[in-house]
Structure formats: C-alpha cells, structure tokens
C-alpha cells in the first residue's frame, strides 16, 4: 500500500502526511511533485494543506493547472482514492473533482482552532473506520472555508449522503454557533458521487498521533489502508 503525496509550490503539510503514512502506518509513501506526470504507483493520493501557488487569484485556482492534476483527475475517475485536506480540498473544488466552492470565512478572519465534527458518512475510503454519528475533535486553520454550492447541488449532496463531516458542538448538535466559517449546512467535508474523492477543511494530519494530544485524524489514513485491503 503506497500513498502518493502531491507537492505544489506552497504546500506545507506534505511532510506531515508523509510522516503519518510512512512512520505511523508503516505504509510506503512518496512525494509527487506538481510537475510530475505519473503518480509513482500510488494506491491512494493525498493533496495536502498549505498555500499552493500562494493562493494567488483564489485558493486552489492555479494549482489545478499543474501537470499532476491531469493524472490525479484520471486516477480519481478510475476509482482511485483521493483525499484533499484544507488547501487540497480547495484545489479539488477548483479542479471540479468535487462540486461547489469556498468563499472567505464569514467572520473575515483566518480561523485556527479545534472544532467538533459529526461524522455523517462512514462509507468512503477515508471515513470507513469512523462510526457514523460520532463526534470527533479536529483542528482547522483557514481563511477560505465558507463552503457553498448552487442550491440544487446542496440538495443533491444531502440526498446522496455525500456530506462526510459537519461542524457541530461537543454534543453533536449542528448549530450556527458551532459553524466556524459560515459554511452552508455546516459542511466541513464532502465526497464525490462515487465516494472515492473526499475533501475537507479540517486537518486530520494535525491530529494523528498521541504526542499531539489527539490522534482521531489517523483513522482517515487508516481507513484508506483498510479500504484498499478489502478491494
């Protein structure tokens, strides 16, 4: 089992993801440079957080034209598991691999703190080890996480259970007060229709080992290992 971790100029969570895959999970891991034109035999691909291309124009807008994104799109289309974390999620949105867009946070500030998430869909290759309905704590750190989509797309996401995580309070209540950025429907993460492409604003990579005080995020990576093992 091999994780491919895409590195754009400006990615800054790539080493965290690499460390989790290699040192914590004992999997193979390899960086895939944004100019690379092959995924080096990766079984699962991670688009990490950061500020790809300095977030110029819009977060994720320029990264989607990197040569590597053509093969990521092909890999995704063939059913390969792809996870976009934070800026990686923004890249997936701009690339059209996931529907919708993010705007600047409702409060116009960069928000960097722990939030509670309710697991809404425990069936994707990155969420299958979570109990649906479980409330987990994960850090966020972003300026543009205010998710939105055309009304019919939002309806479709709900109907097809493609919301993977929702911002909630400690008791699991999905409330306005628990929404850190104004995202529609408190949406923190979504999946594509086939379920193999998942993106989220929170950072599972920043809560994947005990030394960080929280290792709940590790299950996202372990889920991919389990999903591929069962294929």
């Amino acid at each position: 089992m091999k994780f491919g971790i895409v590195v754009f100029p400006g990615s800054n969570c790539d080493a965290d993801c690499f460390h989790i895959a290699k040192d914590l999970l004992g999997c193979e891991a390899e960086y895939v440079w944004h100019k690379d034109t092959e995924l080096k035999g990766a079984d699962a691909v991670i688009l990490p957080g950061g500020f790809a291309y300095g977030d110029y124009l819009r977060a994720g807008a320029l990264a989607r034209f990197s040569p590597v994104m053509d093969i990521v799109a092909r890999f995704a289309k063939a059913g390969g598991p792809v996870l976009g974390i934070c800026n990686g999620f923004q890249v997936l949105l701009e690339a059209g691999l996931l529907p919708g867009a993010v705007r600047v946070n409702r409060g116009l500030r960069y928000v960097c703190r722990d939030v509670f998430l309710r697991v809404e869909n425990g069936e994707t290759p990155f969420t299958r080890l979570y109990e649906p309905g479980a409330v987990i704590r994960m850090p966020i750190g972003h300026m543009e996480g205010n998710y939105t989509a055309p009304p019919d797309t939002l309806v479709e996401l709900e109907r097809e259970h493609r919301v993977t995580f929702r911002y909630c309070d400690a008791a699991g209540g999905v409330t306005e007060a628990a929404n850190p950025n104004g995202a529609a429907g408190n949406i923190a993460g979504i999946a594509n229709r086939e379920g193999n492409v998942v993106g989220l604003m929170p950072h599972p990579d920043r809560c994947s080992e005990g030394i960080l005080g929280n290792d709940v995020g590790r299950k996202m990576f372990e889920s991919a290992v389990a999903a591929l093992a069962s294929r």
Partner: protein
Amino acid sequence: MRVEVRVYPRQDVLDPQGKAIAAALARLGHRAVKDVRAGKVFFLDVEGSDPSAVEKDARRMAEELLANTVIEGYDVRVLS
C-alpha cells in the same frame, strides 16, 4: 488591445468582504451607502485587432480561470 475583465461575487452569494467595507464606510459617516460588493479587475493586454473576437477570447478566459462561476459573475469590456 486592452481588455478589462471585472469579477465580482454573484448577487445570490453573500459577500462578507463587501459587508465589512459597507460597515466601515458607515462608521466613517458615509450614511448614503446601502450596500457594497467587492470584486477584482483584470487589465489584459491582448494581441488582435477584432474587438468582438478579443472579447470572445476574454470571456473564455473569465470562464476558465479569472472567475469561479460557482460564486462569481464577470463582465468584459474591450477598452481600445
């Protein structure tokens, strides 16, 4: 030719930045301001001599890159 592409949040999309600017203007005493929408403008220097062809090209550029049409609208003007 010089082309101006204006990109702005769509009417049906909340614009938190515009709202904050409107509030700041109100605090400065500009009470007549009812609403602000904040966008960006691109000045393109484009080869070509046919204004309608240049405009058509610029529209494609807006669709493909300059605007995210999920949340933004745009308009194109050929200046000269």
